[in-house]
């Protein structure tokens, strides 16, 4: 009786694995591909090293002594000035000195803890909401957060209550203002958007007509015209005719603008709900209000979540436009700080810094939206 020895598993052939094979199949599979690879490498060569040199190797990091949460970190004897900062590389001490302006604008330096508390609260919000996901009263918790979080944030930032000294809105600026405009824009415009979407899908002719007109009009014109409208014309529509707070005017414009876009996103969700759901809701005798709140909207909003996030990303990008009507968001701070006579000719550093911050925020949001899209995409893939 023949006996078979258990042989060791053979290694895969060298011609099919390994770095060389990977290079060959992915980069040098044909002569055209080889040319493309070398062209790309050349492109990287002419772009990346100069950029790194400017940003890191030739750049100045002489921040002086930095107080980082109570730890003293010593970068250099004293902070660089514009003259000894060098012109070959970036001058990051400039950014360090103007960091306050980029973050808070003209917010009083003694009151920084207030926006900071709001930042921490916002961070906590993102921790709390996933935590209470399985809690019995999660709806109540979420609802109270939706009501109290903006209220507390407003009280803290604007002040004027008790010991909190009032801070007028023209002192708000920088990243703080960008975040305020984006979050207020999203929170205020969303309910309006849902109502407009329902209006556009309604059987009632006149309501449908008005909703459609509003949505199509807003979507056809650029945001700038809306902001100019809100800034110059809106006060004239009111009885007093006074020019009220500039930020509030901008917020009204942005909220109306964004509502039209949210409306279209939600309408997409509404149209994706099978007719049977509407008919079933009618059949069990639900009213219009009950039908939408209990049956249709929960489903429609759920499938439009990825697009809602996508639309919010656009809104975040659009907040930079407020600099045109004279609000000092983070981008406006670049122009403003570059006028400092002690730091002349430092626009590139400002632009690169703001670009990095904006990009980091937007990239995180877009990754998140992609993740949601994958999670909600229950369609079968082949």
């Amino acid at each position: 009786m023949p006996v078979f020895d258990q042989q060791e598993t053979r290694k895969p052939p060298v011609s099919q694995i390994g770095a060389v094979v990977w290079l060959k199949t992915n980069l040098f599979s044909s002569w055209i591909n080889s040319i493309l690879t070398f062209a790309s490498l050349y492109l990287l060569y002419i772009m990346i090293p100069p950029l790194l040199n400017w940003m890191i190797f030739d750049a100045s990091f002489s921040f002086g002594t930095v107080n980082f949460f109570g730890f003293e970190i010593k970068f250099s004897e004293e902070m660089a000035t514009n003259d000894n900062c060098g012109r070959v590389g970036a001058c990051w001490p400039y950014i360090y000195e103007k960091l306050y302006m980029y973050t808070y604008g003209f917010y009083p330096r003694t009151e920084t803890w207030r926006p900071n508390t709001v930042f921490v609260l916002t961070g906590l919000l993102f921790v709390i909401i996933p935590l209470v996901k399985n809690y019995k009263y999660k709806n109540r918790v979420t609802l109270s957060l939706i009501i109290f979080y903006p209220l507390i944030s407003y009280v803290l930032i604007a002040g004027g209550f008790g010991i909190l000294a009032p801070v007028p809105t023209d002192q708000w600026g920088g990243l703080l203002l960008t975040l305020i405009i984006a979050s207020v824009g999203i929170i205020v415009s969303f309910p309006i958007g849902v109502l407009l979407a329902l209006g556009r899908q309604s059987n009632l002719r006149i309501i449908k007509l008005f909703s459609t007109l509003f949505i199509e009009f807003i979507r056809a014109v650029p945001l700038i015209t809306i902001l100019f409208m809100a800034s110059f014309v809106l006060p004239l529509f009111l009885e007093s005719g006074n020019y009220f707070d500039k930020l509030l005017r901008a917020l009204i414009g942005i909220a109306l603008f964004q509502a039209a876009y949210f409306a279209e996103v939600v309408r997409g969700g509404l149209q994706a709900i099978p007719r049977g759901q509407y008919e079933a809701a009618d059949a069990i005798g639900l009213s219009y209000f009950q039908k939408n709140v209990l049956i249709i909207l929960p489903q429609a909003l759920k499938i439009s979540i990825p697009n809602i996030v996508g639309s919010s990303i656009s809104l975040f990008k659009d907040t930079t436009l407020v600099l045109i009507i004279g609000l000092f968001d983070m981008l406006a701070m670049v122009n403003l700080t570059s006028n400092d006579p002690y730091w002349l000719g430092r626009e590139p550093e400002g632009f690169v810094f703001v670009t990095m911050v904006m990009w980091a925020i937007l990239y995180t949001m877009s990754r998140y939206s992609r993740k949601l899209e994958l999670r909600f995409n229950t369609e079968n893939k082949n």
Partner: protein
Amino acid sequence: MKKLILESLGKSQHRGLNFRDMLYNNEARAFFFQVVTFVLVIGLFYTAIGNLFHNIEERGINTGFTFLKNRAGFDILPFLGNYVVDYTPESSNFSVFYVGLINTLIVAFVGIILSTLIGLFIGIARLSSNYLVAKLAGAYIELFRNIPILLQILFWYNLFINLFPHPKQSFAFFDIMFLNQRGLYLPRPIPEEGFSVVALSLIVGIIAAYFVKKHFKKKHDLTGVYTSTWPFSVGLILGLPVLVFLALGSPLQFDIAVLGKFNLRGGMNVVPEFLALTFALSVYTATYIAEAIRSGIEAVDKGQKEAAAAIGLTPTQSLKLVILPQALRVAIPPTINQYLNLTKNSSLATAIGYPELMSAFGGTVLNQVGQAVEILAMAMLVYLVISLFISILLNYVNKKMAIQGR
């Protein structure tokens, strides 16, 4: 029996007007809600407009469109709009509107072409089998898509005016084109007598090429004999005008910029504001177009290509007749939407002072005249018309491309 059924349905039998019936009647309710909305909206408008007139009168702002005839009295950055309208500060406010409109349209036109080219290139590169090329294209999309467009416009504008050399040290391309801080200097074409004949021959060539193509397509349908038509097309569209051009003794001169004492003189100056704006808009919009094209190509099932090969189509035929028509059906509608977005985003030129509609007319004239309502209404109307035009185009394309059911 009838009475019994009606009672079981909860309906009262008598037909007269009953308040309770009205309250629970769907049509009555619908009517009521619509009337309420109508009254509210119209009331809101009525009060708003009333307040508007009241406030305007109180402030002594003029109304009406007579300001359009008044002297503008300010200089506009010289660009295409100025040349077309022949603008001077003595011109009317309406010519400012016209200048702005032309400048908007030229940005949109150049931007659309550039962004399509970049987008096409990046979208195809994204699907390349070459790892490095695909990753680079992906990095391009992720980088430029996630930076606000206004930031990009300001960034490039700043970079252009800071990095480009002084006019004395311009970058020269074959001594025909020059690039410096004040922009790009191109040769200015000066058409001479007889050039209109060349332009006419181009149009004739295009029409003739269309009929040639139609003729051979008919032949192909009838007899199955396929004739390649592109040599005819090239000959008619390119060759005919060139022949006419040469026969008439080159009726076109170029005015090339010459370096003067401090600046370049002559030529056609493309201002840096235009360069920065168009570049930023094209680079930004191209990321969206690239994604549209990628999803279009990915949407075509692999089986389609295999089926085309199985019935004996050549790779070119398969691409032209099977793959592209299906890929374009998915890719073109979002691309056209991006064209609209590009046109709308061109209004951000306000931030760098390129004299397009919202900057020259909606900005400078608004500040001088103060008639915000009329001026903004005119500007919005232009964008409404552009967007209406693009949605008509979109509908046409969608109809043309719809899968034809039989």
